[in-house]
Each structure stands twice: as structure tokens, then as C-alpha cells.
């Protein structure tokens, strides 16, 4: 509300200033229009006089110059009296104008503004403050615990925070402290065991296993501890024990807990008893199931809320890995809708092209502003016209010759076989750096440029751009050697997220529907 109030005041002030400027009484509507022009003529007259005084003009020339000036003044006067006065811009017109200003401004703001959004400077933001507060709180509890290590409540708060932030060693220390302080529940044992397990990167042998067993002894219904025990037994290959552990675990289930499918798979694996094939199958199934789970979660979220282009890329890639081309195509189309700018989608497009999806056609309908040239000056002096014609003619010839000899064609590796490119002729070669092909030996670099169809080996001496990488799009300037390699004199790579040489983007798009016989001409 306050904003609308201020906005209205600002508009009113601006309109009042405009209205006042146009209608105030002090305006002398009959002010002499040509006063300024007269001052110019006075200045010219003064220059002529000064030049004569300085001896740069003879008396005769000065008189002639003054005569010419007088003619010009006469002409100006006659023209000026000819000028008719237009319709008057009075109070009513001014009022209508300021009214239009107010309506246009307030209406447009209503249309595009966000009047209800407050400013949110970082320093004053509650969510930022909360984010900082957790860190501060942790630090405060840590210092308190350092002086008072027997504070069970402090450790209980701290330990899960450590776990969440991945500080497993600290978490293990905190949980051990909780156990040492007399918490002998099954839960405390399992927590400590879990922290140690995470610290050992999944290896539960030794102390964690003992803790889990102790927890199960204390509380036979501790699903978490039983789960870890069964998993560890399977991992270490003790299949008979594992089978019974999984069975005991599954006996605790009511049937629809989230851990049941995993436990069932574990049981199947343990029952298969080291048969590699079926185990591999299971784990492959497992993997596919996991990917599917992840994919459907991601897909739901992206369709509902949108997301960064990287997540779209990941989703499309996942579908392609799963072999679901139809879903990949659908996701790609949705991503294109979310990111209509081709530059944002370079990675996406290249993946989609590699997966033989139908690519969004780039908008190539570039029109060039019409330049009007060829206007001829009405100059009386033939010499000037002749000079003009000669210079322009020579320049045109020069430009045409230079264009014929100096333009550099852009090729992809596949083009090279179709076109006869003479060794030594300057060209630009674009494509992807073939994965793993980049070899550096001091200042000498070799890499292979590929467009999916053909490959060309390229050499470059010097320092490659910061973002030059295997698998990335590049444009290299240089020429072919007689041996059929490409000697690059300059290499352009993706400069940052927004800057990819246009040819790379185009060639990546072309790759999806590449027809070697058609060449670049289409």
C-alpha cells in the first residue's frame, strides 16, 4: 500500500512539473526563433574580420566572403518568414498529455511490476540468519562441551548434526560419548555403530558389528541393527548366516515398510549363495531399479517445478541409459520449452544428438538490416565525382579480391573428405575433442577432432584455452598438413557457460541428422 502511495506521489510530481513547464506564464510565446541563428551569423562575421586583421584574408576576399554571408542571411530570412505556425500547444493539450503519462505509467507498472514483493537484502534475511544460526549454534555447543564434556544433552544435539554434515569421525566420537555417559539403549549402540560404519566407508566388520549385535540383544526389534548385520554378512560372503539374518529381519516386517524390497533382494542374493551370474543379474536389476527410482523422482520434480539445465541433462541422459528413447525425447522437448535459448542447451543438445533424438531446429531466419547504399552525391565538381568513383571502385575491387582470397571456410571432419582442401589453405575445423585423445607433451598438444562421422588428428603448440577438455566442442583455426593432419594455429573453446563458438553449436545440431553426401552446403 505504501508503495502505491509513493508511486502515485512520484507520478503526480512528474506530471505537475511537465504541466507547469508547458503552461507557465513567464513563457514568451513570441520569442524570436532565429536569435540563435543570428548569433551564428555574427560569429561568422567576426571570424572574417579577425582573419582580415590577422592578414589571412585580403580585403577583396573578405568583402567577397561578407557578400556570401549576406546572401545566406537574406535567404534564411525569407525562409523563416515562409514558415507557417502549427497548431498551438496549450493548456488542454498539456493536461491531456500529463494525464496520458499517468495512465500509461501506472497501467504498465500494474502489468509488469511486483508491487507486493519486499526487498530482501542478504544481511537482513531471516532464512540467511537461520542458516548462519545453525553453524553458530554448533560452534556454541562445541565450546560449551569442551568445558563440560559430561553434558549428555549437548552431545545428543550435536551428534545428528555431525552425521548430516558428513563429519562421521566427529559423530562417532559424540555417539561414543553418549554411550560412555551411560545411555545403554539399543538405539545408542546402533547410532554409534552406524557412525563407525560410515567412517569406515561401509565396512562394518569389527566394532560396528559387535555394537549391532549388542543392540539386537538389547532390543530384538531393532530393525536398523538387524539390517546392517544382514548386509555385512552378505558383503563378507557368510551366506548361510546372512540368509537367516535376512529372514529374521523380514519376519519383523508388516509388509509395506520402505526397506522391505531391499531386504528381499538381499535375501535373494544370499540364497543364490555366491552364484556369480544370478548375483550380477540381481545387482544389474538393482541398479536399473535404483536409476528408475531416481529418474521418476527427478522427472516429477522437473515437470512440476522446473529446475537447472544440468538436471534436465541428467534426466535425458538417464532415460537414454535406460534405453527409453520415447521418454528421453519427451523430456528433451520439455527441456527445450524450459530453455528456449540454444546456448543454454549446448550440453543437452549434444547428448540428445548422441542419443539420436529429434533436435529442436535452431532459429536460423536471421535477417540483416537493410542498408541503403548507392546514393550518389549531387556534387558539381566533376573532379570530385571522378575521384570518388575511382576510390570506391578500387576499394570495391580490393574488397572483392580480398574476400576471394582471404575468407576462411568452416569445415567439420566429415566435410574434409567431401571437399578438396589443399594443404596449407587456412580453414576452421570444428567438432568435439574425442574422449581421451588429448595428449600433452610440454607445449606440444595433439588431439583428435571428431564429428561422429570422421576424425582428424590435430596438433597445436602453445597453451590451450582454460576450458579446453576432452569431449568438449572446439573450433580450431589452421591448415591441413600434406600428411593429412591438421596443424592448428589457434584453438577456440567454450569460453564460459554463455559463450560457445556458434559453429560448434551448429555442428552439434547438425550431427543429429548428419548426411555426409550432402555436405555443409545444405
Amino acid at each position, binding site marked *: 500500500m505504501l508503495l502505491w502511495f509513493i508511486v502515485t506521489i512520484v507520478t503526480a510530481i512528474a506530471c505537475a512539473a511537465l504541466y507547469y513547464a508547458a503552461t507557465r506564464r513567464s513563457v514568451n510565446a513570441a520569442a524570436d526563433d532565429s536569435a540563435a541563428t543570428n548569433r551564428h551569423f555574427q560569429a561568422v562575421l567576426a571570424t572574417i574580420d579577425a582573419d582580415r586583421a590577422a592578414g589571412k584574408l585580403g580585403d577583396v576576399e573578405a568583402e567577397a566572403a561578407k557578400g556570401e554571408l549576406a546572401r545566406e542571411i537574406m535567404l534564411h530570412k525569407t525562409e523563416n518568414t515562409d514558415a507557417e505556425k*502549427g497548431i498551438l*500547444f496549450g493548456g488542454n493539450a498539456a493536461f491531456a*498529455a500529463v494525464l496520458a503519462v499517468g495512465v500509461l505509467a501506472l497501467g504498465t507498472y500494474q502489468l509488469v*511490476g511486483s508491487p507486493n514483493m519486499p526487498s530482501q537484502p542478504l544481511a537482513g534475511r531471516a532464512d540467511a540468519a537461520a542458516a548462519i544460526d545453525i553453524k553458530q549454534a554448533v560452534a556454541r555447543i562445541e565450546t560449551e562441551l569442551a568445558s563440560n564434556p559430561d553434558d549428555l544433552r549437548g552431545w545428543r544435539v550435536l551428534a545428528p548434526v555431525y552425521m548430516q554434515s558428513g563429519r562421521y569421525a566427529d559423530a562417532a566420537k559424540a555417539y561414543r560419548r553418549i554411550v560412555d555417559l551411560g545411555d545403554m539403549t539399543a538405539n545408542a549402540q546402533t547410532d554409534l555403530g552406524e557412525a563407525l560404519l560410515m567412517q569406515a566407508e561401509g565396512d562394518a566388520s569389527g566394532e560396528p558389528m559387535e555394537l549391532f549385535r549388542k543392540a539386537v540383544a538389547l532390543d530384538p526389534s531393532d530393525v536398523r541393527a538387524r539390517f546392517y548385520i544382514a548386509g555385512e554378512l552378505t558383503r563378507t560372503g557368510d551366506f548361510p548366516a546372512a540368509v537367516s539374518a535376512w529372514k529374521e529381519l523380514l519376519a519383523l516386517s508388516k509388509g509395506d515398510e520402505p526397506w522391505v524390497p531391499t531386504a528381499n533382494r538381499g535375501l535373494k542374493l544370499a540364497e543364490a549363495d555366491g552364484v556369480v551370474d544370478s548375483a550380477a543379474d540381481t545387482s544389474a536389476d538393482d541398479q536399473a531399479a535404483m536409476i528408475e527410482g531416481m529418474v521418476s523422482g527427478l522427472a516429477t520434480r522437473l515437470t512440476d517445478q522446473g529446475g537447472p539445465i544440468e538436471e534436465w541433462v541428467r534426466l535425458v541422459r538417464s532415460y537414454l541409459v535406460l534405453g527409453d528413447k520415447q521418454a528421453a525425447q519427451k523430456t528433451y522437448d520439455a527441456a527445450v520449452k524450459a530453455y528456449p535459448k540454444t546456448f543454454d542447451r549446448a550440453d543437452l543438445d549434444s547428448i540428445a544428438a548422441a542419443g539420436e533424438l529429434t533436435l529442436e531446429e535452431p532459429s536460423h531466419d536471421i535477417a540483416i538490416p537493410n542498408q541503403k547504399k548507392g546514393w550518389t552525391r549531387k556534387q558539381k565538381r566533376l573532379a570530385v565525382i571522378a575521384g570518388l568513383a575511382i576510390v570506391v571502385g578500387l576499394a570495391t575491387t580490393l574488397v572483392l579480391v580480398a*574476400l576471394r582470397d582471404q575468407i*576462411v571456410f568452416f569445415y567439420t571432419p566429415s566435410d574434409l573428405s567431401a571437399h578438396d582442401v589443399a594443404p596449407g589453405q587456412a580453414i576452421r575445423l570444428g567438432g568435439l575433442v574425442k574422449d581421451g585423445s588429448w595428449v600433452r607433451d610440454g607445449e606440444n598438444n595433439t588431439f583428435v577432432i571428431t564429428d561422429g562421422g570422421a576424425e582428424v588428428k590435430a596438433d597445436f603448440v602453445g597453451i*590451450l584455452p582454460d576450458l579446453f577438455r576432452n569431449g568438449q566442442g572446439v573450433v580450431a583455426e589452421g591448415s591441413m598438413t600434406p600428411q593429412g593432419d591438421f596443424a592448428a594455429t589457434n584453438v577456440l573453446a567454450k569460453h564460459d557457460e*554463455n559463450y560457445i563458438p556458434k559453429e560448434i553449436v551448429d555442428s552439434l545440431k547438425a550431427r543429429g541428422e548428419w548426411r555426409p553426401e550432402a555436405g555443409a552446403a545444405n
Partner: protein
Amino acid sequence: MPIELGHFALILAFAIASIAAVGGFAFWRSGERIAQFVSQAAILQFVLIAIAFLALIQAFVVSDFSLALAAKNSNPVIPMLFKISGVWGNHEGSMLLWILILVGFGAMVAAFGKNLPRDLLTLVLAMQALLTASFSGFTIFTSNPFWRLSPAPLQGSDLNPVLQDVGLAIHPPLLYTGYVGFSICFSFAIAALISGRIDGAWARWVRPWAILSWLFLTLGIAMGSYWAYYELGWGGWWFWDPVENASFMPWLAGTALLHSALVMEKRNALKVWTVFLSIITFSLSLLGTFLVRSGILTSVHTFASDPTRGLFILALLALFIGGAFLLFALRVSTLRHGGLFAPVSREGALILNNLFLATATGAVLVGTLYPLLLDALAGVSISVGPPFFNLTFAVLMSPLLIVLPFGPLLAWKRADVVAAAQRLVAAAALAMFLAVLIAALSGATVSMAPIGLLLGFWVAFGAFAELVERGKVGRIPPMDSVRRLAGLPRTTWATAIAHFGVGVTVLGIVATSAWETELVTTLNPGETTSLASYSIAFDSFDPENGPGFTAEVGTFTITDTDGGTRQMQAARRTYQASGLPTTEAAIQTYGFSQLYLQLGEAVNGTHVVRLWHKPYITLIWIGTLFMAFAGALSLTDRRLRVGAPRRKARQVREAVQ
């Protein structure tokens, strides 16, 4: 709230500009009241856009990420300077800067234009308002810098690391001031065509604006060139990149405009041509904006491309350029011709100047647009690179440089070329002597270099021939000469200094192109290499932390021929927020020459360094500083000053009495 107020200020400015444009064109004949109205509107537009711009800066300074622009282009950890310059380090913000400068010029015309004929003032400001309305409309509806994000993210993605440099604070404002300043000349041309009023007085009003814009454009291009030179790490100072050409074409046309406006002011000739150049110069500025902003070209200047933006800008371009040329075609016959002169005269020399500059502009235009046209029409992807531009440009500029020193020595109307040549004998002899001497010392190989040097020295020395002549140096006692020189109009000095600057730049270009040496080698800490009589030792390679980035810094010690040592540091930075790497080149200046070192990524503990010795390269930029200074100097010449009509009038009266 400040953000929304800024947003509203932008919209209000758009509304005022729209109404002022409509009112101005509808009522331009009705004299004082409408002139007051559009003047007031021009000043309000400036105040409002300035408020909008300040609101953006404020949001960036306090890291308000509810502003989408700040969330995309800022970060709390970067230094304050980059937070502020980050405002225009993106498409939307740079458009607002463009508009701010546009309305700034409009407000200046309104403030200083009290002595302009009313109808001319109204038309000029109406045209400026039309430009403001169009471009602020474009900004509001297709690239609004005030879009909000809800909920606001906690972190901003970083400002592009390449832009985290003091260059971003300087280069765009200077360049835009140059680009946009020519809009005033454009508006004057349109006003002249509509009102049919065009005379020497018109040129007198246009010329200061042309000089002001030209001097900023000169500085902007030079600054951009130096920034690219040290930041991009490619070791070059000019790439004939389409975006560079986009700024260079208005410069060439603007330079031609400066000179033809001179003829028009003094001699009332070349009217049609001057009007045409005013239109073409700003059209090229607009074309540059279109090329850079539409995403047709890819370069470091393309922030993000969006087809709707491209189409919108193309439509604006068609409206302004097409409309201007249509008006020109319809109205050009009403402009009177005047001022007869002989081919050999100052007018003739200036026409020659214009001819070559215009042709060079045309050549650059062809080279820049030809690949785009060919791609659009035939689908063939080509590039027109430096060889094309170097060849055509050198051939077109050489005759211009040869005749340049003659220009100021020729009299108006009819001149004696032999007399002028006699006054240039000393400069020619000196230039010849130095060029031969340097060529001989550097090993007298057959190349274009001595000819280039000769041209550079000829222009640089010849620039002072007019001063020598008018100061009667050597013919009267030295003190009298000094007095005469001090009494010369500042424009005379400005001419000499600007032309001298051209010579200096030519010398820098020739020297660095001909005698640059380069070395690519592996070098590890503790090892030493040498280049062009300097020995370079790689001392150490250390990690370092900066604001928002981590770096690996190589420290080098250079020993020159006299045994003096200097240190320099090259770095590879990795920016935390974006994860992008940049290369920071090390540059050490010896006199006018520079050593330039680029440090490559370490592979298996081995470093590759690329070293250049660039003799006299700084002359390139020093020359442009001379040119810009000359522009400023000539602006201070009382005879050109725009803001002091009464004083000027009084002095004229005194002079007449």
C-alpha cells in the same frame, strides 16, 4: 521497496518519453510551450532513469537476490567494485546503462539548448524521446532488469570471472557514451530533415556533440582493446572480431562526421553529406547494438541470446534506420547546396578524408556482414578474419595517412598545394631519416615495416607543421613564437595533437606487428629462459586465495640487458561460485615495450609458458589518448562551447567593435 520504486521510475520514464515523442512530433511548430514541455520531459527522463539505475546498484550492493538479475550476476563474496560493475555486466543491466546515457545526453541538450531555435530543439528532443521510449519499452517488456524471484535464492551465481576486472567498470560506460552520444547528431539530422532548416548554425550545434561522442568512443574502444589484451590472455590487442568491428564502424563514420561538420560549419558546404553521415553513424551504433545484443554473433560480449530480443531489436533497427533513410530520401531535395570551392582546398582535403573513411567503413561493414549474410542465405559457414581486414584496411588507410598532414595547411576555398608541400619538407625529411635509420638498425630486411614507420613518422611530425607555420617558429624570436603559439585557437592545437596521436598509434601498430617475438616453452620453477635480450627466471609456484577465487601464482624474475631485475606474477584462477578458471597474464612494461607472459595449466608438474616481447605496443593506446585529449581540448574552445551563449554573443560584439 527500493527495487520496485526503481522499476516504477523506469516505467514512468518510458511513459513520459512516449508522450513527449508523440507531443513533440505533433506540435513541433507551435513554439515555446512545446519546447518547454519536451525539455522538462527530457530532464525528468534522466532523473527517473538515474533513480532506476541507482535502485539496481543498491540491490547489487546489498546482495538482494530477490532481484533475478542480482541472483544471476552477483555474489556476496566478490569485492564491492565488481558488485557495482556487475550491474551492467549482463544484457538487462547494460541496456539500462545504454538508456541512462541516452537520457543523459537528452537532458544535456535540454539544459544547454536554450539558444537553439525552438522548433529544432523540440524536434531533437522528440526524437531522443522516441529513442528512449523504444529502448526502454524493449527493456521493460523483453529484458527487464527488475524481474523478481520468489522465493529469493540464498546465493547468487557468480559474476562471469572474465568480467571481474576493473575494465568492466570503465569500458562499457565509456563505449556506450560514445555509441549513444551519436544519437544526438542523429536526432539533429532528423530534425533538420523534418524542419528543412539546415545551415552553418546547424553544424555548429552538431559538432560539439559529435566531438564529445567521438572522444568517448575513442577511449572506450582503446580501453576495450587493452582490456582484451591483458585479460583474455591471447596476447593480441585487436582481433577484427565482429563485435570489435561493430564499435569500430561508428568510430570511422564518426571521425568522418567530425571533419565534414567542420566543412559545413565554416563553409556551408557538404550539407547533404553531413546529414547523411549523422544518420549513418548512429545507424552503425544501433547495428552494433543489434549484432552484439541479438546473439547473432558469439563473443565475450554476448551475455545470453534470446530470439525475441533479436527480433525486437531488429524491428527497432528497421524503424529508426529505415525511417531515417526514407525521410532522407523524401526531404533531401529541400536542402540547399552552397559554398563553392576548388578541388585543391581545405574542403577538398576534408572530402578526401571523408571518402577514405567512408570507404573503409564500407569495407569493414562488408567483411563483418558478409559471413552472416552467406550463412543466412546459403548456409555456408565462413569467417572473414584478420587477413581480409589487414589487407583492405592497410590499402585504404595508407593514402589517407599520406595526405593527412596536407589538410590543415591548405586554405579554404582555393589552396596552393606546392606551398603546403614546402612547409612539410622538414617533417618528410625527418620521417624518412628515422624510418631508414630504424630499418637499417633492425637488419634492413625487405618488408612493409619501414614503409609503415615512414607513414607513422610522417603523420606524427607533419601534424605540427601548421603550428610551426602559424607560430612562425624559427622566423621570429623564440619568445614571440611562444606567444603566438599560446594565442592560437585551441582547435588548432587540438587538430595537431589529434593528428599526432594518429601517427603515434600507427607507429605502435607497425612496430609491434613487425618486431614482435614470441616463445612457447616448458618452464618449471627454478628454470630460466630468455627472449629478446631479457632473461626470465621462474622463481616459484604458489597457491593463493583471493576474494571469491583460489589461484595458483607463478612468480617470475626478469633480468634486462643492464642487469636490472623486476618481478612479475602470472596466475591461473578458479572461481569458487562458478567453478570457472581464468588465466591472468603477467605484463611488465619497459619504456613503451612490454613483456607478456601467459602461464599454462600444470601437467604432471610441468608448466608451459608463452612469452611475447611486444616492442612499442603501448604507443597504440597512448596515441588514442592523444586523440581523446585533443577532442576534449577542442570542446573547451570557446567558439564551440554550447553552454555559454550570452558570453559568446558579448564577445562577438566586442570583437566586432
